[in-house]
C-alpha cells in the first residue's frame, strides 16, 4: 500500500494547467498584437 503523493499530483495537474493557460494567453497576445498593427486599405 503506497503512501499518497499529493505533491506530485498537484505538480502534474498544475504544470499541465499552466502550459495550457500559457498557450491560450500566448494566442490572445498574438491576436492583440495583430489587431494593433496599422493596416492598409487593401486586402490580399
Amino acid at each position, binding site marked *: *500500500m*503506497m*503512501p*499518497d*503523493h*499529493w505533491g*506530485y*499530483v498537484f*505538480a*502534474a*495537474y498544475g*504544470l*499541465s494547467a499552466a*502550459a*495550457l493557460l500559457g*498557450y*491560450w494567453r500566448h*494566442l490572445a497576445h*498574438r*491576436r492583440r498584437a*495583430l489587431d494593433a*498593427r*496599422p*493596416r*492598409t486599405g*487593401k*486586402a*490580399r
Partner: protein
Amino acid sequence: MSARVTRILGGLALLALAAGLAAGFGYAPREAVQGNVQRIMYVHVPAVLTAYLAFGLVLVGSVGALATGRLSWDRLAGAAAELGVVFTGITIVSGSIWGKPTWGTWWTWDARLTSTAVLFLVYAGYLLLRAMVDEPERRARIAAVVGVVGAANIPIVHFSVKWWRALHQPSTILGPEPSPIAGPIAAALLVNWVAFTLLFLYLLLRRVELARLEDAWVPETRR
C-alpha cells in the same frame, strides 16, 4: 468558423474540464495499489490521446496542402502541430512526475515514454522548420512533406520501440497504469478525455484563425 461558435466551444471546454476535475478527484476512487498518485492518469492519458489526434490532423493538413495547394490546409497542419507539441509535452512531464513515486525514477525508457519523446522531437523539428521559412506557399509545401514523413514514422516508432522493450523487459511490466481499468476510473478517464478534446478543438480554431489573419495582413508599403 465564426467567433461565436469558437466562444461557445471554449465555454463547453471549460465546463467539461471542471467536470473532469470533479470526476478525477471526487467520483473516481483512491486506487488500490498506487494510491492517489494514480490520479495523474486523468491528465496523462487524455493528453497523449489528444496529441495523437493533433498529429493525425497534421497529416490531414499536410496531404491536403500538397493535393490542393490551398493554404488553409497548411494553416490546419501548422496549428495542429503546435498543439500536438504542447500536449505531447504535457504527456511527457505528467508521465515523468507520475513515474517518480511509482517507479522511483524521473525517466524510464519504457515503450510509451520513449515513443512519445521521439514524437515530441519530430514535431518540434517540424515547428522549427516552419519558423525558418517566411513565404507562406513555400512553407506550406516544405512543411507538408515533413508532415507526411512524420506521420508515416509514428507506426514505425511504435513497433520498433515496442519490440525493443519486449526484448529487454519481461512482459509483466509494472507500469503506472492499474491493470483492469474499472468502472469509475474508466468513466473519469472518459470525461477528462472529452474535456481535453473540446479544449484542443477550441485552441485549434483560435490558432487557425490567427494564422489566417496573419497571412491576410498586408504591411504598410514603404514610402
